[in-house]
């Protein structure tokens, strides 16, 4: 399997709203903690190292 880079969330605005909502009222530090947990949860859900490696590379794209 390779990383899906085309739209895959049926209702993107709903997701985005919930993502921002999740962080509402949190300090930067708390938000970072939530983001870390989110990454770990989603990574485990995907559970496929090659796909995760692609995601890591795409996420870092543009930084040296």
């Amino acid at each position, binding site marked *: 399997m390779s990383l899906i880079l085309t739209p895959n969330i049926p209702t993107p605005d709903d997701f985005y709203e919930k993502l921002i909502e999740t962080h509402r009222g949190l300090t930067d530090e708390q938000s*970072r*903690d939530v983001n*870390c*947990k989110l*990454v*770990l*949860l989603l990574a*485990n859900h995907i559970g496929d190292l090659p796909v995760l490696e692609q995601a890591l590379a795409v996420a870092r794209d543009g930084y040296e």
Partner: protein
Amino acid sequence: MLQTYSYPEFPYVQPPEQASGQLVRKTAVVVGAGPIGLTTALDFASRGIPVVVLDDNNTVSIGSRAVCYAKRPLEVWDRLGCADRMVDKGVSWKIGKVFRDEEQVYQFDLLPEADHKYPAFINLQQYYLEEYLLDRAKDFGDLIDIRWKNKVVSLKNNADHVRLSIETPDGIYDMEADWMVACDGAKSDIRSMIGAEFTGQFFQDRFLIADVVMKADFPAERWFWFNPPFHRNQSVLLHMEADNVWRIDFQLGWDCDPDEEKKPEKVIPRLKAMLGEDAEFELEWVSVYQFACRRMKSFRFGRLFFAGDAAHQVSPFGARGANTGVQDSDNLGWKLKLVIDGLAPDSLLDSYNAERIYAADDNLKNSTRSTDFISPKSPVSKAFRDAVLDLANRHSFARPLVNSGRLSSPTPYAVSPLNTPDSDSFAGKMLPGTNCADAPVRVNGADGWLLNQLGDGFTALYFSADGSVPADLAALAGAPVPVKTIVVGGGLEDVKGLVTERYDGTPGTVYLIRPDQHVAARFRHFDAARFSAALNTALGKN
């Protein structure tokens, strides 16, 4: 500080060559009488190679340093005839628990499989280990010549021998060695003498290591805390040793003064915070370490080899230092013997480099990963670490990510030039290059263990339907490089069926096992040509 152990002081005797002024060429010289130098000397002597051991000191390891020894080194020491004493004195354990704050987040069992002769781990102070190795060395008489207060001060590495200058209380004398093994520890003088690099990383963190004498009712388990209430924002490790001694490691961070931290007035309050105000204990040994993970580029320089900490150094999380060093010795002895006897080409010795560098890299990788988890290097690394620990409390998925040290296990020589890759199909964990699994057996009516049946040389492990052995296989016992056959279903009774299970030994199956108890090749049916080709491969003849 309280001494539960009295350090022996070994006598210095002026070396005969120094007294006579003669330059003598020795077969093998080992520099360093630490765990690895002593194991190397025992292995050499057990194979009939006479060996001189030079050590600049005259006692065993001051302070314990290493505490945890894994099953595989115990099997090696058993082959060398000294493991049982270690197990008897040591504390056997297999359960590890990881705590965060007040709660346990994770527990692991290191030996989920029963029916192995040796436990997953024992804890034993390094000075006892060295004492027992030294006692065993005495059994070899003149084959092992240990010289205390003999410090190697310079060296010339020639094509066909090494020339050493050695300093003793009586001055300096020279010696030549056909072969030499540098086991002189992480600060190796020998390494500097040949100008070899030792590269890797130092971690920006310090650890207080205390051996504490106390009567306590902690179980014989490895307990690791992240951020415990008694030592906030750092980690702590607790281990039971022999003689009511407990090993406690406190992570200190980078901004501390190592000399201050060693003082009892600093150490005791830390221990009281952990053990309670009223706890009765005495300090036995205290030290502060900064850990590093690094190795030499090559472990072989012609006739000079490096082994143990001199060749590779790891942070102690995972107890990989001495444990892997012993496997260096295990790997080198039989190869050197065959080359000395003219039965294998010099290239066999290059496989020491290939196999042990492969193992060192595995250890370095694991130790580095553990250290990165325990001492996160950046704020985001720490944020991920804390997120893992938080999640692990509630969700099992995160528990395998918790890394308080991945404990030493032997690295299979998966890509060794000595392996013959499988051409038949096999189930199970044994592969060419793995060390042999143990299992209970019965031989001549007596209960025993499979590993003890393997010879000092090559062994064929043959699974027979009716007890018979192919004549060509049996005849290999008389070959120039003899192969001893042991027969499952013949002389060797597979009492619990575990040899058959662990080796996927259907009738007719044959394994070629190296003198260091690693699988070289295996076939579903014995074929003399294929088997000899595999033996040649294992002798480095390809």
